[in-house]
């Protein structure tokens, strides 16, 4: 396993929205999907996922329904709502702008000043 990075505050919600946008998932699935799409580079304590999920449901960004998992266990599946999709788009843009700015700032060389 590669070295893992601590999650920045507020980024967990964004990751969850992204993971769910790729197809309905149950909680554990969200975790796996985040691991998969981030090459397991991010450290998320498993339990911490749920308060975030419930928060997103309360904000109307996700909706949930019970279903059956691939190995036949009952599990709750989450999918994006319209508001969630919009939020994901906005936050992605915001994050990209921030990342670009920080990256270019950190890439600055003495001679460029």
């Amino acid at each position, binding site marked *: 396993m590669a070295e893992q990075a601590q999650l920045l505050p507020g980024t967990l919600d964004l990751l969850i929205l992204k993971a769910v946008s790729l197809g309905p998932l149950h*909680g554990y699935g969200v975790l796996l999907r985040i691991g998969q799409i981030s090459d397991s580079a991010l450290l998320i304590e*498993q*339990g*911490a996922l749920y308060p975030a999920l419930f928060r997103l449901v*309360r904000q109307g960004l996700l909706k949930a329904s019970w279903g059956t998992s691939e190995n036949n266990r009952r599990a709750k599946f989450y999918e994006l709502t319209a*508001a969630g999709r919009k939020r994901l788009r906005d936050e992605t843009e915001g994050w990209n702008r921030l990342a670009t700015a920080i990256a270019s700032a950190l890439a600055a060389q003495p001679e460029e000043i």
Partner: protein
Amino acid sequence: MRALAWFRCLIAKFFHRSEVADDMEAELRSHIQLRADDLERSGLDRAEAERRARIEFGGYERYRQESHEALGGNFIETFLQDMRFSLRTLRKSPGFTLVAVFTLALAIGANAVVFSIMNALILRPLHVPHAESLYAVERGSDQAINHSFPDYVDLRDRNRSFEDLVAYNVNGAALDTGHNPTSAWLMEVTANYFDALGIRPYLGRFFHHSDEHGPNSAPYIVLRYAYWHSRFQNDRSVVGRVVQLNKHPFTILGVAPRDFQGTLLFLAPDFWVPIVNQEQVEGLNVLNERGNRGIIMVMGHLKRGVAPAQAVADLNSIGSYLEKTYPKDDSHMTFSLTTPGLAGDWLGGLMREFLTGLMLLAGLILLAACANLGSLFAARASDRSREIALRLALGSSRRRILRQVFTEAVLISLVGGAVGSAGSVVLLRGLSAWRPFSTVAPNMTVPVDPDARVYLVALVLAVASGLLFGAVPVRQILRTNPYEVVKSGLLRKGGRRITVRDLLLVAQISICAVLVTSSMVAVRGLVRSLRSNFGFEPRNAMLVGASLSTSGYSDESVSAMQKHLIDTVQAVPGVKAVGSVDRPPLYFGANTAIVFTDKTADLRPSNAAAEAMLYNISPGYFDAARTALLAGGYFTWHDDQGAPRVAVVNREFASRVFGSPTSAVGGIFKRADGTRIEVIGVAEDGKYASVTEAPQPAMFLPTMQSPYARGTHMTDSTLVVRIDRDPQQISAAIKSALRELDPGMPVTIQMWDKQLNDSALFASRMATLALGVLGLMGAVLSITGIFGMAAYSVSKRLRELGIRVALGAQRAEVLQAALGRPLRLLALGSAAGLILGLLATRVLAYIVYGATPRDPLVLAGVVLAMALLGLVATWIPAQRALSVDPLILLREE
């Protein structure tokens, strides 16, 4: 959309609380199962996989809690949780809970009582439609409520601001329904009274403006509902019946609605009659005398859109017209408006001041109680610092702990508030049913039933005080460092720093000392006023009221009958002296008249030499009342209509009009009608209208020379009877003698000192009672405060005291160590409170006669009281400190 989702979530949580919780738990468990499945697939056995899955999940409880919070709508749930926890902890310390609830019940109860009195007498309007636009008219800078009838008529007909103006007046009369005449209270009103107030009859009809056609033209009676109920047993056929009012036939027109008690808060009349029939009711008609200001009160509804200030300007312009047109009778005709109900500011002003003061003191009580509870809570928080630290260490947030502390505080204050309100309701019910003047005025009540507003105030006070004293330990909790506390046990704060608790205790004790000081000043003032010189001797004297005008005696026969009465009573064995007076001094106010020096030619009110109390007396009065004569002599029965007009004046009158008491004898003064009166004697000063008044000029005129014996409240003249034997026996003898004289004449007999207690000294007595109760509460609060502090400090230092004892400390040293601090704080607080109290009690001097803060007895009393309180409060803790057994204590550690 989002709000909708949030709302749905909230609703779901609220109504399906356990469902939601189960659902969440199921989801978390399913996560662990799914993870375990994966781990199992990677080769672990099932049990190990599940264990690993649980570990990887992290703090299950914590995330469950956080998830729960993330779902929102936790307020009620958390609240209930805190509530349950608070109830549990409070049950575990019943002593603390009891003391706290009791303290608050006392404080909030006191506030509820004072507030509902204030509410009933000042804040709540009269029970009439549109009471908010109803105003009483007051005259002059001293806000007199009495107007003359012609002035009223001018005000009514010339103003452009009022819908209508009514005049009314309270009087006593004898009502005979065919069996036996009984005295009753009535309101004489202008015939537009009910129409102007918008009252509709319950039964029959009311009289109207069109019923008035000059003197005695409207012999009608409208009954009050309660009187109809008690006197006529709800007999509906009473309408149209003719009854005898002071031996004149009056027709009962109807019954007023049940909730209409007239327009004076403290006196509900038995019935209403048109004021045009004044002659039949009072025995004389003064409705045409512009200068005669009886106690006719005026009020009315302002027209829609007219501001009170506009109405005052309007009235004042009529006033200046009246001054110009009637210079002889009208002066100082400026007007102001006030709320009706308490006879304007005559009673209302005093009442407002007194109740505001009382409310302030009650507020202080609550503040002291909050300080008390604050220090108790702070002590409790430091006792519970271990528990708090543990909860912090286990992951509870400080916010959550504070919330719980506040829940506990508010819970206590709510229970205290409920108990206090319940107590106050009982007290107020008693107060409302109470007839303080049962001997003279059975209709006088103190209508102070609590209403929703009172309960609301109690609730607000309870919650506010809960938050106030709950806030005291906040800093302490915020600073708790869980690691330190769990490691080393209790936090030991170093040194003898002054803590918040000390400050609170000093504040509390000084507040209590203020209350104790005020109550002592009040009690001293009352004692002094009971012993002071009124200018007459109320002990061993009776007031015999014989209603002459209500028995049908007219002007000429009154004088003859009066002489007859006096002679009859004089003949009763045990009676030493008898004299009549039209209205005894200190009997619900006094009659006054302006006088002029003999040299004054222009007899307009502004030229008057003095406004003197006026008493029409018979020759024996001074003897019977024991009023000392300073110079000159008395008049005799020969000073009648045929003889030159004479008077006895008091010292103040003599010095104001003639310069000195001695030069007055033989001097002449004039009355407003130009009558010249010679002074033949000077009597000592006395108290006339109120016990707190400054020396007032007074004149005593022979009743035989008065044009008429002007009606007073219940009786035309009162006999003052000096006795030297058992009052019971004499009073029975007088009654039977008078019945022989005239069987139809209502007679009332009361001891003079008792009557004074019920009237003139009533305000002082009530004030003293109220302040006494508040002082007692202050004392109780300071006891609980000192006791709490001392007991706490002893229990905290029990081990240290044990060591001291083991090392050979003497009893005095142990006590000094254990109680020195609380006692020092007590002394400090008492001193501060004493000084504040002495400053504050200057205010009392207005109400309580002779209340002076600079009284060595009061000072000593307060110091002694506070010392005693300290002794009582520290007694139990001291016993506990002294009984410390070092062996047991040291073994326990």
